[in-house]
């Protein structure tokens, strides 16, 4: 798949690179090369943005900073130091990459970084760089720099041909990089970050590293294209590179094209550049920003997934809507030629792609074509699921070990003035199935968060398999063999059920490829009885199934110890019985389990030991029947009823 993809990029590159040399043979005007060069520039820029912001969901408004660094590197070295242009190109990319990595190292270290804060942070960077460029005479000093056009080497011909080939090279390189990232471990990690970052980290995905790789590549590509931008505009000023137009265009292109695929930025760039060009040539440049703004606002509200997602759903009609008008316009000889036909066809295709089809019509068409729906909308009732297999589960890698797998000592967690946990010490041995119970607000979920490494205790220590976790990040704690589920299921919404589980396998303690991980994922789905839902999206399965998915995903990390946080909440009695059976089987395979549950009858049935929390303290611990008779516990639950 990857090899075929790269081969495709190679062939496309060769074909497109041949264009300038065929110009004489076909006699097409140089304008086409200029037009295509513009498309390639924006393709590279949009791809640079998309690798970080599209894939991971961290929107950047700072694209201009990358362009600016690349452009000024070239402008200063070529315009003032007489360097050859080609030598400055990689340097521009490198410096932009370093800047991007610096921003990432600062921002992504924050535990509480929210999307808006990152967006604003990146908004500030171009202002700082622009200001620096203005005050430092060595860079700009306020007058701008002329970039003389380099001489093109012999077979290439003129400057336009050279610029075209360079832009094409950078754009194709960018697209191939985006393609590779998308299908790599880093790409999967980025999509997981996009959907639910802390869940991803908790499953063992090194999120910081993935984001750094993405921002570094984004910087490299943005800088390379920025360096070309200097050549293209010929005169570099602070206003022309550090303005807000560049991020605006780039964001519109990616939102329009689609942010989850390498193809999206390319489609967006083609459409927006064509639109801009035609509007300008028709004398409507005054409306181009109005149209861009409207597209952006309307798409965010109506079709945030962009064109690529629509293409997947309606490939044939969209293709037809592109080809038919293109041919028709060509035959009648509409307008000025190729670009006008392209514009007409693109508009027709975009309309077909985005216009909502009434659900009833779509369903009847689908029924006739017989293609399964992408999202698996109508989930069949849970009763139709095949019965659970009864054969015993394969034992996890550390099964059979004994002694403490999880210990915490004197754990305190404060939120402001509130003490959620007030000195909890607990030791859990291998093979136990511990029920963690307590009244509302007693600190159960907080304790789960601290044990799993997602939260840091205010004081006290936690050890997993004998190793203190204080200095580890959450994904490293996960790799020690601890996994958790969330009370409200938090699947990766953009991935299928199978890939949700495959993520945990792929980034587990024994790293493996996505293909191998998918095979194993299917086995885990069988364990919880979800095999029939493997290719559905999480939005297409019901709550009970999402809770089972949580369990399958946690199980897929091959944990020594599994923390289940209210995994049965909101289920009906039949579903509860089934889930209880699944928990039993997981435990029987050798996994130590801590289950938080408020249905005490379930806990009493399942647990080998019960631990009671009350007001952030350990109230009691021991064998279920004994704990439930403990007067202190009865009082916590019933008040003085026990004495009555």
């Amino acid at each position, binding site marked *: 798949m990857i090899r075929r993809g790269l081969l495709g990029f190679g062939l496309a590159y060769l074909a497109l690179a041949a264009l300038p040399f065929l110009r004489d043979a076909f006699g097409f005007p140089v304008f086409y090369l200029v037009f295509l060069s513009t498309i390639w520039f924006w393709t590279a820029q949009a791809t640079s943005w998309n690798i970080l912001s599209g894939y991971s969901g961290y929107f950047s408004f700072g694209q201009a900073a990358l362009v600016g660094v690349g452009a000024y590197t070239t402008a200063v070295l070529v315009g003032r130091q007489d360097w050859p242009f080609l030598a400055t190109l990689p340097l521009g990319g490198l410096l932009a990459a370093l800047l991007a990595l610096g921003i990432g190292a600062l921002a992504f270290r924050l535990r509480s970084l929210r999307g*808006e804060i990152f967006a604003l*942070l990146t908004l500030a*960077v171009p202002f700082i760089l622009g*200001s*620096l460029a203005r005050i430092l005479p060595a860079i700009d000093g306020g007058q701008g720099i002329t970039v003389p056009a380099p001489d093109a080497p012999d077979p290439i011909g003129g400057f336009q041909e050279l610029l075209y080939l360079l832009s094409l090279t950078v754009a194709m390189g960018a697209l191939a990089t985006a393609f590779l990232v998308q299908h790599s471990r880093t790409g999967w990690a980025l999509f997981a970050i996009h959907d639910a970052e802390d869940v991803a980290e908790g499953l063992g995905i090194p999120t910081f590293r993935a984001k750094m790789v993405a921002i570094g590549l984004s910087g490299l590509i943005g800088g390379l294209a920025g360096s070309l931008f200097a050549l293209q505009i010929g005169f570099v000023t602070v206003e022309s590179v550090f303005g807000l137009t560049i991020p*605006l265009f780039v964001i519109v292109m990616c939102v329009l094209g689609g942010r989850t695929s390498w193809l999206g930025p390319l489609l967006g760039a083609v459409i927006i550049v064509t639109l801009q060009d035609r509007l300008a040539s028709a004398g409507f440049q005054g409306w181009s920003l*109005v149209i861009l703004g409207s597209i952006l606002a309307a798409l*965010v509200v109506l079709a945030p997934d962009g064109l690529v997602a629509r293409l997947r759903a309606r490939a044939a009609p969209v293709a037809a809507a592109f080809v038919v008008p293109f041919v028709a316009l060509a035959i009648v000889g509409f307008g000025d030629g190729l670009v006008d036909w392209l514009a007409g066809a693109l508009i027709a295709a975009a309309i077909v792609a985005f216009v909502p089809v009434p659900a009833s019509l779509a369903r009847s068409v689908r029924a006739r074509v017989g293609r399964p729906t992408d999202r698996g909308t109508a989930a069949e009732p849970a009763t139709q699921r095949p019965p659970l297999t009864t054969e015993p589960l394969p034992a996890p890698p550390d099964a059979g070990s004994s002694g403490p797998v999880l210990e915490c000592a004197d754990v305190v967690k404060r939120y402001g003035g509130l003490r959620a946990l007030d000195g909890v010490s607990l030791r859990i041995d291998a093979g136990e199935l511990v029920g963690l119970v307590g009244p509302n607000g007693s600190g159960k979920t907080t304790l789960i968060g601290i044990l799993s490494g997602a939260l840091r205790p205010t004081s006290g220590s936690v050890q997993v398999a004998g190793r203190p976790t204080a200095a580890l990040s959450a994904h490293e704690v996960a790799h020690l063999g601890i996994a958790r589920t969330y009370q409200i299921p938090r699947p990766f919404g953009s991935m299928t059920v199978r890939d949700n589980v495959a993520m945990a396998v792929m980034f587990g303690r024994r790293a493996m490829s996505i293909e191998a991980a998918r095979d194993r994922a299917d086995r885990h789905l069988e364990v919880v009885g979800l095999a029939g839902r493997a290719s559905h999206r999480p939005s297409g399965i019901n709550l009970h199934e999402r809770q089972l998915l949580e369990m399958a995903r946690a199980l897929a990390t091959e944990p020594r110890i599994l923390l289940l946080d209210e995994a049965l909440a909101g289920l009906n009695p039949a579903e509860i019985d089934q889930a209880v059976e699944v928990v039993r089987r997981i435990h029987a395979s050798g996994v130590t389990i801590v289950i938080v549950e408020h249905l005490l009858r379930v806990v009493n049935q399942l647990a080998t030991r019960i631990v009671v929390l009350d007001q952030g303290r350990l109230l009691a611990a021991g064998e279920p029947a004994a704990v439930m008779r403990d007067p202190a516990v009865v009082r916590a639950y019933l008040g003085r009823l026990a004495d009555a």
Partner: protein
Amino acid sequence: MIYLQAAVAGALTGGLFAVMAVGMSLTWGMLRVINLAHFGLILLGAYLTFQLATGLGIDPILTLVVSAPVLFAVGALMQLAFDRLGLTEFNSLIVSFGLLIIIVQLTSNVWSADFQRMDSDVNPYATEAVTIGPLAFPVPTLLAFVAAVLVVGAAHLGLTRTYPGRALRAFAQDRAIAAAFGIDHVRLGTLLAGLSGATAATAGMLFALGNAVIPTAPFEWVGIVFAVVILGGIGDAVGTLLAGLVVGAVSGLVSVTLSPAAAPLVIFSAVILALLLRPDGVFARRPA
């Protein structure tokens, strides 16, 4: 003395940033809408002042009688639409970015892409200055400072002393419980966004008093106003005023000691530090 002059003059100019920022900050903090189109409203306010003063000969300050209600209505309608669409905080940022560039382009189509400045016969304020001892201050910046104190003061009193104001703060802290006590967020949100539109009219008027207007001006405001909003603490009116004055004074001082081009360097470095270290605002006192 030159430093004092620069700092005080800068702080007065900072009043304009505060007036620009206060509506943005409050709608962000209370309604969870990051409204970039607010800059478009300021631009419209500036052009309305320019048009009414130049075309009809109205005193530029009095143009507020028209522009404030108009922008109140625009702001309120925009908020109604945002509310109806149920946008997330983040999507509001993107959608309003789209709206902003639409406004920028439309103003450019109507008033051309060139600088427009009110003539001195319709705008007597531009050329006047007040001297206090050895210091001299242009009237437009003095007016901006006075307006900032008035607008922020009114916002502060409104939020702490009136029922709708307190209801808004309550709403910002816990939407569901606020509703349980009868607080209608659609009505209050529309009111706040409308008032924010009226402050945009004021900011636009003040800008037009001392500057030539150009459709791309919002892109120059975005950075500095975000700086003021973030340094002041999102949703904190008084913090916004303090941040505006400090940012203005620092700009003034840096301009004299280093160079005017260095001011963004200092201010945006401060913003980055603020975002990294104190995302709740540097000048935020008691949050609203």
